């Protein structure tokens, strides 16, 4: 493998060949012929790899062409300002795209008593402590004690968390499995927004997991919805709302949740 930019360095020190530009132009001009020759004559794995590369290039090319075509199109009809009726003073303004749109629908749903305590995932499969924790065996002292655990599932750790002294630390929540944001969806709005997690409200597996902030399927989390601009009936800004995790975060590497 080349170390450093030795070719550039050489060109800087000694300059380029006098016919460099001319040769480059000719090479580019012949590229098509070269490509066609390769496509026809490659055999075996090389051919396979070449076709793969070529296919990707073509997809990109078509995408760019389509984008250019779209730019050239002039729509004759006046753009419909908005699908929802707006008063005269909001008509010519660029409408802010946020999920606020149908917030009243959510509010109405919450008013229904039955809906108040129902969650999208009422039951989840249990997770045993053996699966949740792995025993820490490293270090001389720890080996003897045998009560130190690593949480093997994704966790939420609050911003103000500081580790306890290593001697007393019973649970380790690995940095790589900590999450701060969740992709929160509202089904009726068909809107998904990435929102910061505020806290873990309830882990259905075990109250201890709630305390540890373990994020598993079915966990109720509180998310910060202030970006959505939701407002209560009293006119106060809503900023925390509950959501339930619907995927297995340890499998997917992300957290998907439904707004309750």
């Amino acid at each position: 493998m080349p170390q450093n930019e030795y070719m550039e360095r050489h060109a800087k020190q000694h300059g380029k060949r006098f016919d460099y530009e001319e040769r480059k132009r000719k090479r580019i001009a012949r590229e098509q012929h070269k490509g066609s020759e390769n496509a026809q004559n490659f055999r075996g794995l090389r051919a396979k790899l070449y076709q793969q590369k070529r296919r990707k290039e073509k997809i990109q090319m078509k995408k760019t062409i389509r984008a250019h075509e779209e730019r050239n199109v002039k729509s004759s009809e006046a753009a419909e300002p908005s699908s929802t009726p707006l008063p005269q003073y909001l008509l010519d303004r660029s409408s802010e795209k946020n999920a606020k749109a149908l917030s009243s629908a959510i509010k109405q749903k919450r008013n229904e008593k039955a809906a108040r305590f129902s969650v999208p995932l009422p039951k989840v499969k249990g997770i045993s402590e053996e699966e949740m924790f792995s025993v820490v065996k490293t270090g001389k002292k720890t080996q003897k004690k045998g009560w130190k655990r690593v949480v093997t599932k994704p966790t939420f750790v609050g911003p103000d968390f500081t580790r306890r002294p290593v001697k007393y630390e019973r649970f380790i929540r690995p940095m790589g499995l900590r999450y701060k944001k969740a992709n929160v969806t509202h089904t009726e709005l068909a809107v998904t927004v990435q929102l910061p997690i505020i806290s873990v409200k309830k882990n259905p597996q075990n109250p201890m997991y709630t305390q540890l902030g373990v994020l598993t399927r079915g966990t109720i989390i509180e998310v910060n919805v202030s970006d959505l601009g939701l407002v209560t009936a009293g006119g106060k800004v809503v900023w925390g709302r509950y959501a339930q995790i619907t995927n297995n975060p340890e499998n997917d590497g992300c957290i998907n949740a439904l707004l309750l």
Partner: protein
Amino acid sequence: MATVPPPPSKRQKTAAAALAQTQADVTEDMPEGAIRVRFVDQATGEAGSLPVISIALANATTKNLELLLNELQERGDDRIPYRFFYTSGGPPYDGGGEALGDRSDLYNALVKPGKISAESEVTLQYAPQAVFRVQAVSRCAAAISGHGENILTAQFSPANSQRLATGAGDNTARIFDCETGTPVHTLKGHTSWVLAVAWSPEGNILATGSMDNTVRLWDPSSGQALGTALKGHTKWVNSLSWEPYHLQATGRPRVASSSKDSTVRIWDVVGRKIDFALTGHKDSVTCVKWGGTGLIYTTSHDKTVKVWEASTQTLKFTLTGHAHWINHMALSSEFALRTGYHDHTGKVPGNEVEKVAKAKERFEKAVTVGGEIVERLATASDDTTVFLWSPLTSRKPIARLTGHQKQVNHVTFSPDGFYVASAGFDNHVKLWSARDGKFLFSLRGHVASVYQCCFSADSRLLVSASKDTTLKAWDVRTGKLKQDLPGHKDEVYAVDWSPDGEKVGSGGRDKQVRIWRN
């Protein structure tokens, strides 16, 4: 463990209660002595023939000052309520100042806080108030469903608070009976959203402007359409304004409509045709107002205000100054023009001549300042400022009202012409003195854009409608929140205070019309 003293015995408790009772009615003692008061008219800044009067401090309540001033002006029985203002500086008195509360007195308001000494002479500016009083709305009297889509505009009938007309995104306008909280008529005919509704000053015709480029006229008592659609505009209709009642040719009212197609058309209501069109704007005409002196004012997205002469149908002049779209405009005479000959007493003059005379008198009373007719104009713009104009006297603005931090969406004059309120996308409503544009108060409380605001008929209260789903009623004198009115489930797009002050009507994105009362 700490020692807890035993609870007081019954005898001790009764003794304490008796002591509290006897002490409760100790009054605050007023100091003896008198204060010399000079009364100055706030509009002119001059005392006129009024003498400097010495008043005992014990008697110097606002109520007594008001009686005294009425006495000095020899008004006899038809007394006018006054509001008194105090400013620390000497003349000239530049409007505003600290207003004395209605139940306040000079000692508690000024002498005790050390603003004046009892020995010095105090100059109080006085401003006449409406003789009737509107009570702040405090509860939702009715939430009326009916509209199938967002409610975009609402206006009360000029006669009283019985009828409210709303325009909505379901292509209909509706008329509601506010006494019973029921829908009365559904005005079907438009093929797209109804963006503007306007009652004629007489209250017998309702005009609606729509997204389908047409204006339609309706009979509000029967709910029948008056003829077919008035076609002419090539884009949607932004606003409507009726010809003032005292300028109308008898039986031939006209209505002006401004449109996105950058024209304003004046419609002959009886002939159902275009009387004339005003072309000259280069962009969407956002607002049109027909002034009481026969001028038509229009504001546009092309950053100009144009003033047209209705009689000659020509452009009189153009007011420039704004740096961005002009969104809305208010006239100082707007309330008087909207209500025509209807006043707070509810008495309607007998014949046509008297009606016109009364409408004219009401208009002149609203705009006369220092003996001459001064119709002022406030324009709200996207450049975050409000301009105050006096187009009859000068083509330069009186004042440029700066302070909003985002676009100003709505501006309105108080019915007595003393205040201007502007509502902006920066969540604030700001109150300004309409005479010189001095900043008075910032009404903070909304947590999202304020879309519209409306003064009560006595100019003492203001109600504002916001994106944060609430209405809020404000006290104009103190600039404080008077009443928070939650209830709507989504953004409130339109609000109107009935001309008689009884009710507030509002509508918005939750498709419900709400009627509020005290």
